[in-house]
């Protein structure tokens, strides 16, 4: 009896509510747009910091998950600055978190 009542309330509440985010994005869009709009070292560094913060927060957290592409984008930027060994570690993380990234990660790593 009580269970049915409870289920009814839960269904009523959830029926048309927007879903919560699956992933944690931090300030991703803002710093990425700034990087596209104002290319240069300052914007690049700022965006790398935002990516690093997302990685750090999601790795520490049990509820926040990392979104597709963050590890790969971070690794790509490390690669561009000559840090190929560090980059490889992040490419591996992307492949592990999202196996469907295999083809693109290999393409980026080349």
């Amino acid at each position, binding site marked *: *009896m009580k269970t*049915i*009542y409870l*289920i*009814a*309330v839960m*269904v*009523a509440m959830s*029926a*048309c509510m*927007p*879903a919560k*985010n*699956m*992933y944690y*994005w931090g*300030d*991703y*869009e*803002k710093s*990425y*747009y*700034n990087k*596209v*709009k104002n290319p240069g070292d300052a914007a690049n560094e700022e965006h790398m910091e935002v990516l690093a913060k997302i990685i750090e927060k999601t790795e520490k957290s049990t509820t926040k998950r990392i*979104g*597709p*592409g963050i590890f*790969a*984008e971070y690794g*790509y*930027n490390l690669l561009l600055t000559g840090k190929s060994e560090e980059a490889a570690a992040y490419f591996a993380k992307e492949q592990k978190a*999202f196996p*469907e*990234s*295999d*083809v*693109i990660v290999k*393409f*980026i790593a080349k």
Partner: protein
Amino acid sequence: MRKLQKIAMVVMLVSLVSCVTTKHTKLTEYPEIYNEKPKTILFIPPVNHTTAANAKDLLRATIAPVLAEKGYYVLPIEPIFDFFKLNGAYSIAETTDKLPLKQFSEMFGADAVLKITIEDWDKNYYVVSGNVEVELLYELISTKSENTIWKRKKKVIVDTSSTSGGGGLAGLAANLVNTAVATASTKYVAVAKEVHIQALADLPKGYHSPLFMKDQAEPVWLDTP
């Protein structure tokens, strides 16, 4: 007690029905996407039919989180756009109707391509508050069947003074107060994100979503052109 049980049942039914009252469902409108179940999406540089110079960059900077939250793997945009630029293919969607879909599949592992055409981008976009009106065409093209497996033409009106609406605006508006980043720029980013959220509202959920293959009966609100 019986009465309570009945009331509970009615409440349950009403709330379920309230979301499924139209004949147009995701399955009837977009059967092919349920057949193909694309996992990876390649976002290509949009086609811009307007003079709004920032529109392409704004759409590019905000698309990945919105698509990812739908359950799709968005192929990393930055390295791919760098590759397009390096190979003189940045305007590929603007210069050809025949996209190299096979190559996209082989090189990038793309299951589908998202092509956005910017039809209209409000001139009043640059005002600080008020409504922003944009019109866009979103097309998801399969690299396997080469068919358009989902399509949406959408006129989006974003109330930039409002703090509600998808959460995107509210969250970013809150950041406005705390950062040194230019106010206007932050607002544009929030608007672009809201545009994606509204335009992609009825895209069937992807592989990573808990609703993957469970949203076929959801209604589709067709826009009157």
